[in-house]
């Protein structure tokens, strides 16, 4: 037997036992669902007729692009995910999928989502989707996340772009309205993630990620949460204040904003360990509801406007 034959027998290649569910987990389905919803609102707000098949295609591409970003993020963060209790159950730390497999999966989906959106819908939307993936993977994951405490502030732009991509899919341009949606998600991100970082600060410290509570301390983070919440309330009311939406949206945004403000003040005031933990968890949970209800109100108003002439004419 030749040396080559012997070496071939000695090699023990890893045969994947990863199931489809493991690959779906790489796509971060919960994040994806929020991306689809915000993109849907951006699409619904856009003027002009958009064929349902094109709308479905656009949303699918945006969803797959977001999922691809998640897969690439997990491929690049396999080392730190295994050190954090929140992420230790992901497919890579569990050994279900290797980092190169996740990387190949993410790159393939990125390519197909961008090209499909560009070819079938338009290249402004395709380019914006490519930029979103690039920003999340290269700027945020590879750069900001391990480098600065402002990681999620700047990185939040990636999560805020889907409504802009969706608007561009319909119109082929970018306008003020989708930028307002962008701004809402952008200013919502810091209070949301810093609340998480406050009650998961041990996790982030173990992984060596410079989140604000670990770098500037919990008190400075509490103040930043409060300040960003105040800005968020003003930005969230802007679609009404600028005349794009009716008073109903304005009232809902202010009521929700008041809820966020109360919880942010609660986080700022309560410094004792147990009470602080409860306050940050409440703010984190409410912030998800806040964004969902705010965007649902925008969607409801758009749908109502579209249906009103039909109901009135009947």
């Amino acid at each position: 037997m030749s040396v080559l034959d012997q070496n071939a027998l000695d090699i023990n290649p890893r045969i994947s036992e990863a199931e489809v569910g493991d690959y779906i987990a790489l796509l971060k389905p919960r994040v994806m669902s929020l991306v689809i919803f915000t993109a849907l609102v951006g699409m619904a707000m856009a003027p002009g007729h958009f064929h349902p098949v094109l709308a479905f295609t656009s949303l699918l591409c945006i969803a797959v692009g977001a999922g691809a970003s998640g897969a690439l993020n997990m491929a690049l963060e396999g080392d730190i995910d295994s050190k954090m209790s929140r992420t230790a159950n992901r497919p890579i730390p569990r050994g279900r999928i290797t980092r190169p497999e996740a990387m190949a999966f993410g790159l393939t989906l990125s390519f197909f989502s961008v090209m499909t959106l560009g070819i079938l819908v338009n290249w402004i939307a395709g380019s914006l989707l490519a930029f979103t993936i690039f920003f999340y993977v290269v700027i945020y994951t590879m750069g900001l996340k391990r480098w600065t405490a402002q990681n999620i502030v700047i990185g939040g732009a990636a999560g805020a772009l889907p409504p802009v991509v969706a608007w561009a899919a319909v119109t082929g341009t970018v306008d003020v309205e989708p930028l307002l949606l962008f701004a809402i998600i952008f200013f919502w991100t810091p209070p949301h993630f810093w609340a998480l970082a406050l009650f998961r600060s041990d996790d982030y410290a173990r992984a060596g990620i410079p989140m604000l509570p670990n770098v500037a301390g919990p008190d400075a983070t509490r103040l930043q949460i409060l300040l960003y919440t105040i800005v968020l309330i003003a930005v969230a009311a802007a679609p009404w204040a600028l005349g794009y939406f009716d008073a109903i949206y304005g009232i809902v945004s202010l009521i929700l904003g008041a809820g966020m403000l109360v919880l942010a003040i609660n986080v700022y005031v309560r410094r004792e360990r147990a009470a602080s933990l409860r306050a940050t968890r409440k703010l984190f949970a409410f912030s998800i509801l806040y964004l969902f209800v705010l965007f649902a109100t925008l969607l409801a108003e758009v749908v109502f406007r579209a249906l009103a002439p039909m109901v009135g004419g009947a």
Partner: protein
Amino acid sequence: MITAMADKPETDGIVLTEAQKKSRRQRSIAIALALGVLVVLFFAVTMVKGPAVLVRPM
């Protein structure tokens, strides 16, 4: 040499376990479905756009 080979049955390459076969089959089906969706998507959009399928902003 020939006798020794006849005594010991040789396996060709890597033999997959049942779990590996099952997961590979699942993944193959998922890839086939994804490609099918892609084909249907391109077909549907071509039907919707008609001759204007190549006319896009930018």
